[in-house]
């Protein structure tokens, strides 16, 4: 238990600490109570976010429980009334001396070359509490110097002091028990199992919590020493969780990201993507100057003035023939500036910061929000109506997992596939694509339908019992399947709202600051502050669009039909990232001017006529709106390379080229206007944002009401065999991972997952690839029999090396049916 679990407890436990009468909270550990009263007890194994184990004995202190003083480990001992604790007694000192002398027997003198040197708890404790001299003259224990236990983490076993932090983290927090103690006595070591690398999405956390230099981050190896580093508190923009981070740089280069212990968000944990994707800023492939296509030639470096002039010429036409895609990479300020430029100046409403892989904007904006702490509050019920959180929102996954395992939260899965949380779920309802709305509707008492009857009766009963209104219910809501229309998810949301009045939602979208983008009006039909376009009054804007725009699907179709002349890509790469590859290609090739604001020449930017170089994470000041509606700072630590600019400055440049004053030339002016225009931001104190602990949760109340109809009937089974489930893996071929050297190789090869029963029915034989047939379009794919796949479905992840599943997807289809047969000849 952590101190934060019961902050409101007022019934104190009186005890004596170094002669002073103080009070501990109920059930509080002695080590925490001492910390709160300003007495630091040295420790190695104790970590406030994990269960104590008492491995290292460094926290031994003199405790008198009425029978005379004796040494007790402070991390294992809840404070009981009237004990007398002495952390400075002779016995305590001699115990600390002894523990450190023993720990240093086998610990090598690597400090000058060790990446932990300078910020090492073992160094610090030795200096503060150690004996100063060693009596050990024998040879130390030797192991092979650092062995890679995963592509991201090196293990130096000589340095390990066996504190059990990493192994506990892997087992208890991440649920990936891939590292463990092996051997006995002096030969005990931490290691992986043979042939099983420590391929956890969370392996970097073990590096951060290691109290010595035994676990080291490969990307940070020998890059800098702690005293070189400058630090700012920022927010990770890798997914919508918005994990709080420390961004560290040395000599104007980002060198490291550490998790910041934020009670409300990530508890100090990060996914490896949060932690290591900063390398993208150092990529050699960065676009550092504007690029311009002159005539039909290749893209060539150009000046800002020429590039913006060319872009401005294309933007001057009929606003209904201009569209914007993307914007989830931008910070709030960049999103506002672009929303104002495109909607308030140019006057188009064809804007979408999602690429058909999220939720309809009214749903993402209009549902009552829950916070992560509300979702994870002890005793609640959580409905997972979305993707596997481990793959798409890994830091949120750690919070959810802790809530289920430690705090008695019950999980109901309403997903098209088992997820990483299935083993812990109280009710598992895995719905064939198209049926989730019906299944959710049947959770109400007395309702039944065909789809619900297909679910296991015991799971339905368990889910109904959990939703009987006796426990608070929250929903983690996202897009679980790209090959299935979001309308079925909407049906399920409607059903849950009717069943549980007052249910709140956590919109678990995937793309960085996409919820900020929606809030800032980078979506059709809305303006900053979640206000509907129609009838809105925006005095600081020259005007507002006079038509309701299209979403990404609509924009793509219109562009492919020649109804759009100019598309602006705000960090979006539809060629690789839009679920319908053929449509994206047709659209981008048909438009006459393509303007890309990006840091890389992505497949889409390579088609562009103008590329404007943008600053990335850690290179510009701004803020981030996470899935709770929490506004937290995202600060610059290094300067953008070359002539790259912050996104809001790019908008200002373009406005200038258009001959218009956007109304702000500094971030402060922009923020002042933003606060006055977007009512949800009216209360934000921008100056205090960087110093606020977790950032304020904005009151995202809407003036309009979101309504849902009855659940649609699921599409009838066709002659086609299986229904396709397409989702994301954490490691894929996205630009961020591809341009980070140590993440580029982590994407697993694309594989078709089939239920073993279906494999047998289809007559597939091991070693022969399957041929996937969708309306005559065929794709050959390696496959694997996977019992976790729901029968009559087939599962694939998008953007993996091997084959491109997007060739099977067509936007606008309610579900995607495929036919599978064995490939004729040998492979």
């Amino acid at each position, binding site marked *: 238990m952590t101190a934060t679990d019961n902050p409101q407890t007022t019934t104190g436990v009186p005890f004596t600490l170094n002669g002073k009468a103080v009070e501990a909270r109920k059930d509080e550990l002695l080590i925490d109570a001492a910390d709160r009263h300003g007495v630091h007890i040295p420790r190695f194994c104790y970590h406030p976010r994990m269960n104590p184990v008492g491995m290292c004995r460094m926290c031994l202190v003199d405790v008198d429980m009425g029978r005379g003083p004796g040494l007790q480990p402070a991390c294992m001992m809840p404070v009981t009334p009237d004990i007398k604790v002495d952390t400075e007694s002779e016995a305590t000192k001699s115990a600390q001396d002894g523990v450190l002398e023993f720990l240093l027997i086998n610990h090598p003198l690597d400090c000058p070359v060790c990446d932990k040197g300078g910020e090492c708890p073992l160094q610090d404790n030795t200096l503060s509490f150690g004996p100063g001299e060693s009596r050990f003259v024998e040879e130390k224990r030797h192991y092979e110097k650092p062995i890679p236990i995963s592509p991201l983490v090196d293990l130096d076993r000589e340095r390990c002091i066996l504190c059990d932090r990493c192994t506990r983290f892997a087992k208890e927090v991440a649920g990936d028990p891939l590292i463990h103690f092996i051997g006995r006595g002096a030969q005990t070591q931490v290691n992986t199992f043979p042939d099983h690398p420590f391929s956890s999405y969370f392996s970097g956390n073990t590096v951060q919590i290691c109290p010595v230099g035994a676990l080291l981050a490969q990307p940070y*190896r020998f890059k800098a020493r702690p005293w070189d580093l400058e630090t700012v508190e920022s927010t990770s923009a890798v997914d919508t969780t918005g994990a709080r981070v420390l961004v560290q740089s040395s000599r104007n280069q980002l060198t490291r990201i550490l998790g910041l212990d934020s009670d409300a968000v990530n508890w100090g944990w990060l996914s490896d993507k949060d932690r290591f994707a900063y390398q993208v800023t150092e990529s050699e492939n960065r676009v550092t100057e504007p690029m311009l296509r002159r005539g039909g030639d290749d893209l060539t470096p150009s000046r800002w003035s020429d590039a913006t002039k060319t872009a401005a010429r294309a933007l001057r036409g009929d606003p209904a023939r201009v569209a914007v895609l993307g914007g989830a990479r931008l910070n709030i300020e960049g999103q506002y500036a672009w929303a104002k430029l495109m909607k308030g100046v140019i006057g188009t409403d064809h804007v979408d910061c999602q690429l058909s892989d999220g939720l309809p904007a009214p749903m993402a904006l209009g549902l009552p929000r829950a916070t992560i702490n509300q979702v994870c509050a002890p005793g609640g019920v959580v409905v997972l109506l979305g993707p596997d959180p481990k793959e798409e929102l890994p830091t949120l996954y750690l919070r959810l997992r802790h809530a289920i395992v430690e705090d008695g939260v019950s999980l109901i899965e309403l997903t098209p596939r088992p997820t990483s949380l299935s083993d812990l779920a109280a009710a598992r309802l895995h719905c064939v694509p198209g049926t989730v709305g019906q299944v959710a509707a049947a959770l109400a008492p007395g309702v039944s339908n065909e789809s619900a009857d297909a679910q296991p009766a015991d799971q339905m009963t368990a889910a109904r019992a959990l939703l009987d209104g006796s426990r608070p219910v929250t929903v983690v809501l996202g897009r679980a399947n790209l090959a299935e229309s979001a309308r079925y998810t909407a049906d399920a949301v409607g059903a849950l709202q009717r069943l549980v009045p007052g249910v709140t939602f956590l919109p678990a979208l995937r793309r960085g600051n996409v919820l900020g983008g929606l809030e800032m009006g980078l979506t059709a039909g809305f303006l900053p502050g979640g206000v509907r376009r129609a009838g809105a009054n925006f005095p600081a804007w020259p005007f507002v669009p006079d038509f309701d725009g299209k979403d990404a699907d609509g924009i793509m179709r219109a562009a492919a039909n020649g109804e759009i002349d100019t598309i602006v890509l705000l960090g979006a790469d539809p060629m690789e990232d839009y679920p319908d590859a053929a449509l994206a290609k047709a659209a981008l090739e048909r438009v006459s001017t393509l303007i890309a604001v990006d840091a890389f020449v992505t497949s889409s930017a390579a088609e562009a006529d103008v590329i404007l170089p943008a600053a990335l994470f850690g290179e510009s000041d701004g803020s981030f709106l996470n899935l709770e509606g929490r506004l937290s700072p995202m600060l610059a630590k290094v300067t953008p390379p070359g002539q790259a600019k912050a996104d809001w400055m790019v908008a200002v440049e373009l406005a200038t080229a258009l001959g218009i004053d956007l109304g702000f030339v500094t971030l402060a002016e922009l923020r002042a206007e933003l606060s006055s225009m977007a009512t949800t931001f009216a209360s934000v104190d921008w100056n205090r944002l960087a110093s606020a602990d977790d950032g304020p949760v904005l009151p995202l109340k809407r003036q309009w009401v979101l309504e849902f109809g009855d659940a649609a009937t699921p599409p009838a089974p066709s002659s086609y065999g299986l229904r396709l489930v397409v989702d994301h893996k954490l490691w894929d071929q996205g630009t961020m991972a591809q341009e980070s050297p140590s993440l580029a190789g982590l994407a697993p090869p694309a594989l078709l997952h089939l239920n073993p029963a279906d494999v047998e029915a289809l007559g597939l034989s091991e070693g022969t690839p399957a041929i996937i047939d969708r309306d005559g379009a065929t794709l050959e794919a390696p496959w694997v029999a996977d019992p976790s796949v729901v029968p009559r479905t087939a599962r694939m992840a998008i953007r993996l090396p091997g084959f491109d599943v997007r060739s099977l997807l067509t936007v606008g289809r309610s579900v995607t049916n495929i036919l599978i047969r064995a490939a004729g000849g040998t492979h």
Partner: protein
Amino acid sequence: MGYLEGFGVTFRKWGEGVTTRQYLGGRGGSSDQKAPKPERLHGRHVLNRYEDGMEKCIGCELCAGVCPARCIYVRGADNPPDEPRSPGERYGYVYEINYLRCIHCDLCVEACPTEAITETKLFEFSFTNRADAIYTKDELLVGDDGKPQQLPWEDWRSGEDEHTSAWMRATAPAGKAAYEGVVGWSGELGYGVRAPELGQTAPPDEADRESGAHDDHDDHGGHH
């Protein structure tokens, strides 16, 4: 008429002759010998190598961290496994000292855990551009004979390159007099293990030369 008084000074000084002399650095024949240098003169640095030729620097950046003038820039890197530059995992990949900033305080020498950086008695160097003032690792590293490399703008006399780590050897590990005469450092390329020099317990006539030697009492401690 105040300005006439001013001219008066000029005219009076006219006939007094020149007191500034050109520094000849020993080139002026027997009358212009270089003055003997003090035992612990702080000249420019060298990066030492072990007897087997390996570099002593491991790129730990402690020297850069301790430098009060922020004149040292170091970056470490993984030793190439087939051709290691230094013993262990890490070597100094970049090592630069900016002599426009260096104040020759020798804190870097004290901080160095491997005796890699020491100061010579070479102090006669002047540059005509800033790039020359930044000594790179190639320039600081001793040559294959263990001697400092002479750079074009450095003024040397024979034998001056012998004293590359004298100050280091005069100081006992942990500064304790009990270590007097004990060799506490490793061998160097070109010199092997050098003999210990006289340290804290030097004979009285040696110690007399040191100005603070006679008033070394607690009540004067603040003057040191």
